């Protein structure tokens, strides 16, 4: 592997991209979308003292969304499209190795995706004007954004080397991206609710004297209305049963979702009440909550004031992060696909996919 040839190939792809007008139109549209997103998120998070974390998280997540939507088109035909245009073989007869060609194209696709992230930078700076954005949040979310952009670029480049037809490989890249972003919540929801468990629910309600209406107290008096813990609670009626979904068995499915990875990996702050102060935290809380096994013998005791359930901050603190497993899995799959693409693109070619020509 030769770094100068690798960079020559990456630059060849990048040069062609930045010399087309449509490329700038796309970046312009992207900037317009971000203008709207930033303005609306400032309005949405204006109820908080520090609206910075909220706005910042929305802009980062929308940037990831747009990169994930655009990247397959930019990378999904880089190898087979070149073969169709007869520009692949001229590279293959040079001293550039197949690995250099495939990785060079991957690098170009990655950098192209990062251009979108670069367009988002001014908006992220504006978001920090809202106050309260922690440097660690910026650092972690940027690192994950860069990594996820690379993963999508790798999927697209690899599939364009594995599949013969550009249209088919672009569609396949979209399907992979859709499986990760939309497919994981669908699978999570469907599988989780199909393996539901039976839960018995008992309700203990505070007792009141049927004639006087005064509360019944533990010490036999009637002056415990202000202190629920001193009141007598009794079960009303037989226990009921219901089926509740077991998301605690399938929460790991969501670990493969790029947005979950981004939210899970980014440290986020909480309000004084223990609520997340940004979209990363809210997403993280929702996903982490799925890890908690439901109580199958549920008792609701009105006399137990402690029973309000843990706050979001407590849930996040008591559950395990999963982003590195999700990201690690994606990196492994992307690496294997790239390796497959290299072996399919290797020359002198022994087998050619049906209906393709080498030049």
């Amino acid at each position, binding site marked *: 592997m030769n770094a100068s040839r690798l960079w020559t190939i990456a630059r060849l792809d990048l*040069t062609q991209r930045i010399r087309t007008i449509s490329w700038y139109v796309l970046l312009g549209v992207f900037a317009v979308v971000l203008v709207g997103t930033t303005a609306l998120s400032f309005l949405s998070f204006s109820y908080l003292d520090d609206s910075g974390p909220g706005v910042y998280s929305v802009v980062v997540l929308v940037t990831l969304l747009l990169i994930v939507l655009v990247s397959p088109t930019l990378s999904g035909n880089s190898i087979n499209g070149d073969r169709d245009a007869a520009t692949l073989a001229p590279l293959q007869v040079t001293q550039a190795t197949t690995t250099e060609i495939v990785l060079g194209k991957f690098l170009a696709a990655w950098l192209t995706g990062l251009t979108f992230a670069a367009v988002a930078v001014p908006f992220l700076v504006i978001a920090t004007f809202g106050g309260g954005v922690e440097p660690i949040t910026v650092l972690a979310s940027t690192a994950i954004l860069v990594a996820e952009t690379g993963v999508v670029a790798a999927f697209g480049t690899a599939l364009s080397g594995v599949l013969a037809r550009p249209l088919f490989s672009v569609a396949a890249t979209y399907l992979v991206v859709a499986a990760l972003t939309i497919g994981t919540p669908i699978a999570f929801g469907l599988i989780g609710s199909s393996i539901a468990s039976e839960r018995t629910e008992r309700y203990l309600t505070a007792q009141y004297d049927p004639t006087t209406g005064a509360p019944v107290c533990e010490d036999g008096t009637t002056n415990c209305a202000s202190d629920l813990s001193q009141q007598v609670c009794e079960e009303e009626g037989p226990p009921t049963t219901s089926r509740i979904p077991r998301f605690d068995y399938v929460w790991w499915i969501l670990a493969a979702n790029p947005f979950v990875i981004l939210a899970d990996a980014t440290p986020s702050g909480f309000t004084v009440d223990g609520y997340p102060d940004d979209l990363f935290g809210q997403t993280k809380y929702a996903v982490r909550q799925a890890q908690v096994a439901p109580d199958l013998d549920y008792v609701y005791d009105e006399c137990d004031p402690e029973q309000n359930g843990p706050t979001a901050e407590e849930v996040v603190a008591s559950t395990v992060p999963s982003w590195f497993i999700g990201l690690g899995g994606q990196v492994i799959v992307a690496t294997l696909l790239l390796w497959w693409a290299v072996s399919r693109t290797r*020359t002198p070619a022994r087998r050619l996919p049906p209906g393709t020509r080498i030049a």
Partner: protein
Amino acid sequence: MTNAGIVAEGVRRSFGNVHAVRGVTFQAPEGAVTGLVGPNGAGKTTLLLMLASLLAPDAGTIRIGGVDPVAEPAAARAKLGWMPDSLGAWPSLSARETISVTGRLSGLSPAAATSRATELLTTVGLETLGDAPARVLSRGQKQRLGLARALVHDPQVLLLDEPASGLDPQARIDLRLLLRALAAEGRTVLVSSHILSELEEVVDDAVFMMQGETVSSERVAEAAGRARTWRIRLAGRDGVSAALPVAQALGLDVATLPVDRRDVLVSFEGDAAAAAGLTALVSAGLPVAEFSAASGILEHTFLDLEGGAR
């Protein structure tokens, strides 16, 4: 094996049920231009792809300057320059960038690649178009750019697939001179074409391919030796009035001689018979203005072989 040119022995390659190349054996020596001649679908492009180290043969051996392109593609690529039948040009790159990028990938330093690009643009006559994007080039100009790209790393062996297609007459003459000059420098040049009159003027030798196989030299010699047609034109006469004196001088029946516009067409068994015929015409006092083979030796052989194959 000391041949530094191209050696192919028993090379075969099929795609599924299509046997594109079924048995190719030939040598292209260094210091010479060798033509690769065959009808459409004869397997010429497939053969060139195998020689260019892009396609692996199913069987047989290939040596490019003594190097096996299947076992050592990098070493073979350093020796060979390949020009495809249609140039896949990076649309928004200029001709100069196209050449220098290829040079960079072939191991030249940035400065060397840039100066080599300028040099080659002059060699192929594209110096005024060096900074125009490749997509605005005409077909002939793209062919010239393809040739420049193939030459960027100064290869010993050149594989050119239809280099003359789309070229104007002046560019064809320039190409011919360039190919002769490259061969004179000791390089091996293999040119495929079906414009046989073009090839005729530049090749030292030719390899004929029919239905995926190289035609044996005996069969080529036999085909080349068969009767060929010559065109005879007499000064100041049209074809019809020239036919009778020509037939009388050659001792032929005038009814057997076809006439094409101003020319009379006569069939001779090889060069010696033709020379004898010309002597007879001149000694009969006929004003012979033109006496030439109606078809080149390549074209004649090609048509004869193709006729035999049908």
